[in-house]
Structure formats: structure tokens, C-alpha cells
């Protein structure tokens, strides 16, 4: 487990494993604890993927699906990675249901883009990225998942994931440097 943002590391992972095993046996209380431990990151991930629209609904659906599939969790990797994999698949499925998501037009950044804060610029740049690059940037650049873990979450070959992250990083850096200039 390379993921640096998993709370208190090893102990947290072991607690997740114990709770997940109980949840697989039908223990609703154990599953509720898992929801409490992971909702922040799952919701933040989906909220930014969905660009703020329907992220919470998808997050709830993610946890419900995790409950239904609790018995199929094999304990390989982190529980949060498993949740994010479900979230990513649900996001893709939701997006297919709504046809293609509309790309943000350049004008959506607003006329006064030069005056806004760097965070807003980066978030707007993030919102303009294709969904796969957005997800890869959030996981690898924001949350500290390793390339291997992110590739597993997003269902991509490792090489593809690395180039997706590199493209996303280049675009975000361009925004940051443009803001600084």
C-alpha cells in the first residue's frame, strides 16, 4: 500500500479489513463505520469528477453497491481503492446514460480569469480536462495514490495511466504557471 492519504496507515487498513469482513457477513453497523471513514474522499472524488453535479447521489449509489457486493471484496489492496473503483465505474455508467458530458467551453473560465485565485484556475483547468485525465490527476497528483493503484482503480494499463497523468499534470502546471506569470 503506497497510498499516503489513507489516514493512520497500516492500522487504518487493518481496521478496514476487519470492518469489511463483518460487512460481508451482513453487519450493517460495521458497514456504516466504513461509510463514515471513507465518505469524505469518495464524495470529493466524485464531486470533482461530476463537476459538482450529482456527485453526492453517485457517492450514495457507490456505497449501496459496495454493500451489495460486500461479499465479493477479497481483501486485496485497500478498501478505499475498491470503493473508488466502484465509484469510477458508476461515474462512467452514469455519464454513458446521459450521453457524452458537455466539455466546458473556454468562455466558461470567465472574462476575469487573470484576477482569480490560483485554486480557482486549477479547478477550472481540472474541470476542462477529459474525465479520465481528471480522475487520474485527482488520484495521483491530489491524493497520492501510486500509478499502479490508480491504474487498478481506473481499469487502465499502467503505461496508459502514466501518460494520462503526465498530460493532466502538464495542463494543470500550465494553468498554475500562467497564473503566476
Amino acid at each position, binding site marked *: 500500500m503506497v497510498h499516503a492519504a489513507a489516514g493512520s496507515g497500516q492500522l487504518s487498513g487493518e481496521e478496514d479489513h476487519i470492518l469489511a469482513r463483518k460487512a460481508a457477513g451482513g453487519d450493517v453497523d460495521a458497514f456504516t463505520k466504513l461509510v463514515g471513514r471513507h465518505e*469524505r474522499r469518495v464524495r470529493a472524488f466524485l464531486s470533482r469528477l461530476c463537476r459538482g453535479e450529482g456527485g453526492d447521489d453517485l457517492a*450514495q449509489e457507490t456505497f449501496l453497491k459496495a454493500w451489495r457486493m460486500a461479499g465479493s471484496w477479497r481483501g486485496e489492496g485497500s478498501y478505499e481503492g475498491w470503493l473508488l473503483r466502484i465509484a469510477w465505474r458508476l461515474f462512467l455508467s452514469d455519464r454513458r446514460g446521459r450521453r457524452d458530458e458537455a466539455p466546458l467551453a473556454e468562455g466558461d473560465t470567465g472574462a476575469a480569469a487573470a484576477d482569480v485565485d490560483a485554486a480557482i484556475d486549477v479547478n477550472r483547468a481540472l474541470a476542462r480536462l477529459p474525465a479520465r485525465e481528471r480522475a487520474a490527476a*485527482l488520484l495521483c497528483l491530489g*491524493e*497520492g495514490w501510486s500509478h499502479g493503484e490508480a491504474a487498478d482503480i481506473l481499469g487502465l494499463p499502467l503505461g496508459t495511466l502514466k501518460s494520462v497523468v503526465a498530460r493532466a499534470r502538464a495542463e494543470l502546471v500550465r494553468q498554475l504557471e500562467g497564473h503566476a506569470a
Partner: protein
Amino acid sequence: MTDDIDLRLKALLAAPERAPDAAFTARVAQAVLAEARMRAAARAAWTRFAAEMAATASAILAFVLLARTAPPADSAAYIPLFGPAAAGLLLLALWVAVSVRPSGARF
């Protein structure tokens, strides 16, 4: 410089720190409980349906077999009560099969 940019990106892209959202957790827990109840009800309904179908099939089969049973050879002095009695017993068995089922099966 690269490290500095990566640190800035990390700070900008990481999920914002905040306390756990108890309302969201409670909403998910309620949905999970509702789904668990629905699953139990659906399982019970299928169990009841299967038991009723099995009982019905048994009764039909029994009546078919009874209808094919030949009467005794000395039929002059014989009062043929065997058929109705058997049918009654089978109806009783049917009632038992349908009524005696797992306690969670009723809605």
C-alpha cells in the same frame, strides 16, 4: 521547482479536510437497511411461492394417481370411501404444506 509545483498541485487537488458528515452516513445506513429489509421480504416471498407451488403440484399428482386407481374386484358389497378419504387426507396435507412455513414468510 518541480517539487514545489507538485506540492502546490497536491494541496489544490486533495480532498478538503473536514469532519465526517454524519448526515450523509446516516442516509446511506438507512438506504442499506431498507435494501436489507426488501431483500429479506423478497426471499421470504420466493420461499412461500416455492412451497405453495410444491404443495399444489403434489395435490394435483395425487388426484391424478387416485383417478387411475382401479376399484376393488368385490365391488358389490364394497362402499367406496377410499377415494374421498384419500382426497381429504391430501387436502389436509396441502393445507399443512401451505400453512406451515418459515415465520418470516408473511408480509
